């Protein structure tokens, strides 16, 4: 036994409609003590199921068909034990700790957090209640929960999402495990919180010599934190190597394509993303040959005639599952480099302002009792001021709860702002009544975050796209309507023949295209994109980003692009607006903002974003920001950021800084620059 954990040839199947569907198709990996290993892949690639198979957590209708799991110190293959046996129960939570994605649901709400951790300790370590309590408090201190002793008797709902995830880490680490599996553990959290947590996991792992498996879809996270990486695609590991090798000398076509498809913070302005065409194969219909063949740019006809390729050694600790030789790959690479790509679409930013937002404020009343007495206010957004030119893209970034969506909804006039102007082509729509608004509705459209919930499941694709045409009576005859719908379908790259299908018959990317077609149908001047790609897979994201850019060049629409992925925002935006706790803290040209952030919050945010490049990551200082985003209910006095800011002065605690132009349209709200 060379390694701490050796997993070989895991095959896991799910019974679907009487057929065996292989979700994990022969995955092997190993892990050494104190090592941090990343497992990356798109959704459905089988990364989570692999981990669950190792722990025998796969429930019916799924089962582990074959494979071996050897854990150092256990004599037998762990898969030979029954899933519910004493042995497996002591391995799970004892020798292997786990943290899951949803911090909101992975703690039991009716038990105190102290009790839950204490139970775990008593089960796995030979301790009595008092000792276990002491260890619990020690663990809570380790994950930097302030006032650990008092917090022992708190319930999960008294903590924020980030805090709960810390508690999960404390619980997972409490039984002194040898291995910690973090399955998308920070995906649901904000970037700054995510960076803090991962940093903490790393330092705890190094201190206690615990091995960590980071399961994620985010290439940036593994680039920053992992030492070795497994890249998974359609149920198999396609490439594995040290982190630097994966990013700098990737061998497998999938890894290479993936790296070409993601935007990066240090991209030049005109970089075009090269999406991976097509969709990942449905596991039920996966071919016998290489599963990536259909989407592979390097493929040769022979690939389809051979079996699925196995991992082959291509370098020091570097394995890739591809039939092509390095020479063939190299030649093809040159060919691909030389194929002319579509140039980045040319933008035409007009001088005319389509949207002017001035001093917008929206408070939500907090009501209590039957009489609905107003007992307070949630100050969702305050003093929002910016403008948007024709054909321009304004990126809006900020952590969750900072008021991005509230702002979008005020502009869409779902909410009526308490104060301020929203001038749309010179007309103030902020206080208009529903009737008066009618003519403006069609000129601002929206693309939603979740392509699954934003399309009416009972309407056909055609009628979803046709709806606003009907409402606005913009087509006189039925033929004209149909022609227009076909046109819109073609515009967003969908086959008009799919008009009669209902949304659930489309893939995520296709649905988002439908959402875009719907937004375009009324020929709007402004489209608000509310996190339009964050629910999509990495390889699909590039397709949608490119589509949005092309459409803008073609139609001259303006975008308000809301997102939390800063690399994507930088890629698509001309200017970027940074929000913090309901206020605008900085507005600047995209390139300038990223090169030269002025506000301390912007700086911290940019440093917290993990990038898919180990070289860049190495140069970065550790977590530059402490604390979490305070609740908007108790916004700090003065500058909202002062309590997390290292440069805060006395003045910051008392006064709110105003947004000031520092030249070239770079606006910042900070006393440091006044």
């Amino acid at each position, binding site marked *: 036994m060379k390694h701490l954990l050796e997993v070989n040839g895991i095959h896991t199947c799910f019974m679907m409609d009487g057929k065996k569907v292989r979700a994990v198709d022969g995955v092997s990996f190993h892990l050494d003590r104190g090592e941090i290993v990343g497992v990356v892949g798109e959704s459905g690639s089988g990364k989570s199921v692999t981990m669950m198979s190792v722990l025998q957590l796969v429930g019916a209708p799924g089962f582990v068909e074959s494979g071996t799991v050897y854990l150092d110190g256990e004599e037998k293959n762990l898969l030979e034990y029954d899933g519910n046996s004493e042995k497996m129960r002591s391995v799970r939570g004892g020798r292997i700790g786990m943290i899951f994605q949803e911090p909101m649901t992975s703690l039991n709400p009716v038990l105190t957090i102290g009790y839950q951790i204490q139970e775990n300790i008593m089960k796995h370590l030979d301790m009595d209640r008092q000792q276990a309590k002491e260890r619990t408090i020690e663990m809570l201190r380790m994950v930097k929960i302030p006032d650990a002793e008092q917090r022992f008797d708190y319930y999960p709902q008294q903590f924020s999402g980030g805090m709960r995830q810390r508690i999960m880490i404390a619980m997972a680490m409490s039984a002194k495990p040898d291995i910690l599996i973090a399955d998308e553990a920070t995906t649901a959290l904000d970037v700054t919180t995510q960076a803090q947590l991962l940093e903490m996991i790393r330092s705890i792992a190094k201190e206690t010599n615990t091995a960590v498996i980071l399961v994620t879809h985010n290439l940036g996270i593994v680039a920053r934190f992992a030492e070795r990486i497994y890249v998974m695609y359609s149920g198999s590991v396609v490439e594995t190597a040290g982190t630097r090798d994966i990013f700098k000398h990737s061998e497998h076509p999938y890894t290479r394509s993936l790296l070409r498809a993601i935007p990066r913070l240090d991209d030049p302005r005109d970089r075009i993303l090269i999406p991976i065409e097509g969709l990942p194969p449905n596991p039920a219909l996966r071919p016998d040959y290489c599963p990536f063949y259909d989407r592979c740019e390097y493929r040769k006809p022979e690939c389809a005639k051979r079996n699925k390729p196995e991992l082959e050694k291509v370098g020091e600790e570097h394995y890739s599952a591809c039939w092509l030789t390095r020479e063939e790959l190299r030649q093809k690479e040159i060919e691909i480099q030389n194929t002319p790509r579509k140039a980045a679409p040319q933008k035409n930013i007009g001088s005319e302002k389509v949207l002017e937002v001035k001093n917008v404020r929206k408070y939500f009343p907090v009501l209590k009792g039957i009489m609905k007495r107003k007992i307070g206010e949630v100050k969702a957004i305050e003093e929002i001021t910016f403008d948007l030119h024709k054909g321009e893209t304004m990126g809006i970034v900020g952590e969750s709860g900072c008021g991005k969506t509230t702002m979008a909804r005020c502009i869409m006039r779902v909410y009526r702002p308490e104060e301020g102007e929203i001038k749309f082509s010179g007309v103030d729509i902020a206080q208009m009544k529903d009737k008066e608004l*009618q003519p403006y509705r069609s000129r601002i459209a929206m693309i939603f975050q979740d392509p699954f919930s*934003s399309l009416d499941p*009972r309407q056909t694709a055609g009628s979803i796209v046709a709806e*606003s045409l009907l409402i*606005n009576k913009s087509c006189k005859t039925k033929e004209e309507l149909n022609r227009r719908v076909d046109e819109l379908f073609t515009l967003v790259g969908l086959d008009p023949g799919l008009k009669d299908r*209902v949304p659930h*018959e489309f893939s995520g990317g296709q649905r988002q295209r439908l959402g875009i077609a719907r937004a375009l149908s009324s020929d709007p001047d402004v489209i608000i994109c509310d996190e339009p790609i964050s629910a999509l897979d990495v390889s699909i994201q590039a397709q949608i980003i490119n589509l949005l850019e092309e459409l803008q060049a073609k139609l001259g629409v303006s975008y308000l692009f809301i997102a939390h992925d800063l690399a994507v925002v930088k890629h698509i935006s001309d200017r970027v607006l940074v929000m913090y706790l309901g206020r605008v803290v900085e507005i600047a040209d995209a390139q300038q903002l990223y090169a030269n952030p002025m506000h301390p919050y912007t700086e911290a945010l940019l440093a917290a974003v993990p990038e898919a490049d180990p070289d860049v990551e190495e140069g970065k200082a550790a977590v530059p920001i402490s604390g979490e985003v305070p609740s908007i209910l108790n916004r700090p006095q003065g500058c909202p950021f002062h309590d997390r800011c290292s440069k805060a002065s006395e003045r910051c605690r008392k006064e709110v800084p105003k947004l000031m132009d520092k030249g070239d349209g770079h606006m910042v709200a900070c006393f440091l620059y006044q």
Partner: protein
Amino acid sequence: MEKENTVVQERKEAGYSRREKAVKFFRVLFKRKLVLISAVGLVLIVLMAIFAPLVAPYDPNVQSLMDALKTPSSQYLLGTDNYGRDILSRIIYGARVSLIVGVLAVGIACAIGTFFGMLAGFFGGIVDDVINRISEAIRSIPQIVLAMALCAVFGGGIINLSIILGISNMAVYIRMMRGQVLSIKETDYVMAAKLQGNKSLRLMFKHVLPNCISPIIVQMTLQVGQTILSEAGLSFLGLGISAPTASWGSIVSDGRVYLMQNPFFALAPGVCIALLVIFLNTVGDGVRDALDPRMRGRL
């Protein structure tokens, strides 16, 4: 050839015609054997009620005290009741009353309840408060007491009885629909439709209602049986259908006492009610699934 092509093209552009849609709906609906069998069963029950005079072997109301409480024989297939009336004939005629009361009452309850539930959920605020208070008031009175009070005011008879039972049952639908609407209203697709400039009415009927009906259909099919029994209860108290007229519920309640003498007296109409509910429920489930495009291709 060319002409044919343009015809196909045109039809494609116009989407499916109404007729095609209907054909498609029934094809999906009857793909499951159980649904088909249940639908046939339902049709048989309805035909039986309509053609009762032709189907029934005897007059359901003619008494023959000599033959009272006979067990099944070739003369009386299901035996006779305590007045010597043929039970089979009474069941066949009783189907008329039970079907009308069951379906009509549930239809009324559902129509009113769904409508007000939708208003309450959709508009919220004062509309919601008023509708909710009324529905809570109705729910707080025991159903049979409420129905009795209404019966005493409006009098008996099949139609009156159906309306009364409908009103006393509608609170369930109000509550159910309101909950559904509240959650559907918050979805992104309703928001998207609103932002496109849809008027409230269109929004409500085109986007909200179709996504809310699944649990309503299930509730409706289950409630038919319950209503048929409630009718018997009211009739037993002298408030529903007057004495000689047969209904399934009333035969069950009459026969309860004579279980030892002729078990079929109570059992046979009971089985009929059960069958009706099972058929309705199966067909209801089928309709729900066939209407749901998410189930398309899975059935």
